[in-house]
């Protein structure tokens, strides 16, 4: 009896410890989000979002950084999304379980594990110097695209894997070719999950700093880009500059909070969208 009570007490203690830790983890997130939101939200106004930085980046807005980040996100996705989805289709629908597939998959994993600063080095060596793109949106977008590639491949593969085989077989039985099956049966069902992957990789790409340090990011450019060979400012790099190497770090603190808030908002919205998407479509699929 005694040992039984002892066991129960031990379990109680352990379980309450676990829930406490979980509360702590949730708490960390809320502290970070809350702190930046409270300090940052008061800075946000129409001028902040639509004006050029002014007076040594202590006044004005962050428009060029917002536009720059949007350019980089668009550029990287134009490249990475089709390549990622196509290679996931090849991996999942065409390749049999053999060494080629194993090799490609392990390469994708390796690419995902490479630190972002190494992507920066690589992008600088290949795109900026070797291919002579210079510090440009093109070089930065390609670097970021390569970084996002494994994420897109993985999520797309997951999406394709979750589609039951009998749907494909049914399509073949009706005389459809492989390509027709993929286009008419597989992709429509997988589309919501693939989109979720796209949204998440957009959120990832928009926050990356290290890969763009030497491929595109500019310390200060008070105008908007005109071509893909222009340098741009970017939100994450701007935040870094404001906090570590601005002309007057104390005075640009409010700007930094505002920039951090915009970045977080971006990530938050992307995550909420992805979640809503997933939930909405998984419900719909279940009902069918």
């Amino acid at each position, binding site marked *: 009896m005694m040992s039984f009570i002892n066991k129960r007490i031990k379990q109680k203690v352990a379980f309450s410890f*676990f829930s406490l830790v979980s509360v702590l983890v949730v708490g960390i997130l809320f502290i970070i989000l809350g702190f930046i939101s409270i300090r940052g939200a008061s800075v946000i106004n129409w001028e902040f979002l639509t004006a050029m930085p002014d007076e040594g980046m202590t006044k004005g807005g962050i428009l060029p950084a917002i536009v720059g980040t949007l350019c980089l996100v668009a550029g990287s996705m134009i490249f990475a999304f089709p390549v990622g989805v*196509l290679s996931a289709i090849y991996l999942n629908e065409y390749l049999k379980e053999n060494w080629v597939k194993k090799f490609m998959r392990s390469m994708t994993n390796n690419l995902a594990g490479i630190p972002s600063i190494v992507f920066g080095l690589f992008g600088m060596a290949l795109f900026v110097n070797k291919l002579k793109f210079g510090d440009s949106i093109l070089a930065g977008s390609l670097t970021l695209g390569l970084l996002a590639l494994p994420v897109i491949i993985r999520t797309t593969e997951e999406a394709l894997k979750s589609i039951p085989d009998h749907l494909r077989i049914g399509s073949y039985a009706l005389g459809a070719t492989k390509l027709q099956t993929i286009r008419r049966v597989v992709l429509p069902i997988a589309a919501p999950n693939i989109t979720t992957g796209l949204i998440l990789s957009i959120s990832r790409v928009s926050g990356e700093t290290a890969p763009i340090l030497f491929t595109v990011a500019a310390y200060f450019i008070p105008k908007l880009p005109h071509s893909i060979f222009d340098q741009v400012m970017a939100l994450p790099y701007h935040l*870094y500059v404001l906090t570590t190497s601005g002309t007057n770090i104390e005075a640009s603190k409010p700007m930094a909070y505002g920039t951090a808030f915009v970045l977080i908002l971006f990530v938050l919205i992307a995550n909420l969208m992805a979640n809503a998407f997933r939930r909405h479509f998984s419900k719909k699929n279940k009902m069918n």
Partner: protein
Amino acid sequence: MKRKRLKIFEKVFEGVLFSSSTVTSLTVLFIIIFLFSEGIGLFNSTPVEKKYKFIVSNDNTVKELSSKQLKDIFNYDITNWQQLGGKNDSIILFTINDLSTYFTDEELGANFENLPSKINELIKQQPGILAYLSDKYIPAKLEGHVIPLTKISVTDFVSGTEWYPTSEPAPQFGVLPLILGTLWVSFGAILIALPLGLATAIFMAEVAGQRLRNILKPVIELLAGIPSVVYGFFGLVVLVPLIQQLFDLPVGETALAGSIILGIMALPTIITVSEDALRTTPISLKEASLALGATRWQTITKVTIPYARSGITAASILGIGRAVGETMAVLMVTGNAGVIPHTFLEPVRTIPATIAAELGEASYGGLHFKALFALGIILFLITLIINTSVELIKTRRSS
């Protein structure tokens, strides 16, 4: 006819698919090629600026100088050639800045046209001279000789304890402090993240109900989604001042700050991977344990965790990997002092932070530039080892 065209189209499409799927492998290959082609040039090159040479008198018997010795000479820690195995002559340093102490403007001529011959005279007079000169001032008929410098070797690079890549005339490329700094901060991070992450994973997999899990999952995804520069910013404005006050330090930018921020950043990886591992434990095993009268907690410690052990190991290795490669957050909160760390309360400098901070200033193709790519190779190798060991663990598990 139509069927045939369709078939050709299918083949073409398959070709497109195949070429897309080679992009990742090619990228990995190219990353390796470019890191090595830019970085490998550091080794076997002389640690001195291009077009500059060190010149000694012909009587000097010292055969070779290393960059470490040069640095000591220029810091006046070595003052006699005897200390380097040469004759008993005190070392007389001569650089272009010392011109006015030896020669008048008239002697040199308006465009320094007399400089080479004057240098010859000086070298003849001073047996202990060590002159650091640009190629254009070195006399055609040199009365002394150029002293060769020890080439940078891989061992010197990895085991050298001083990282002064821009110091002139003797840059030091020792990355040991950076490697140790990286490992130190990552080790601290995993010390924080592993217990927290594991506890949360167990809570999610074994204790919490579906509703709580539905709250925790997105929280963890968000934690993973916050950009590293925002973590760095938060660390800088909240954590760093806090640590400074708490431990009464001169600066708050410490290894501890880096470890805490990296620990938080590694949490999502550790939680997701170990939760997945815990979930793979077959229900039959757990039920058997419960049927024998074990409590749920006993089942967790005696059945579930041992069963998921390799997955948990994989989780911690991946967490370390995340910490090792992290750049911006570390750059912002660790203070970036390139010294070998002894405690958690002093500034450290990691490999990624060094690359991020210095590549912008390094001139293209120079020694410093090459050294930073060589650092990239080290970082790449560390992450390669980490990824490979995780994959090995995974395949062992599934077989």
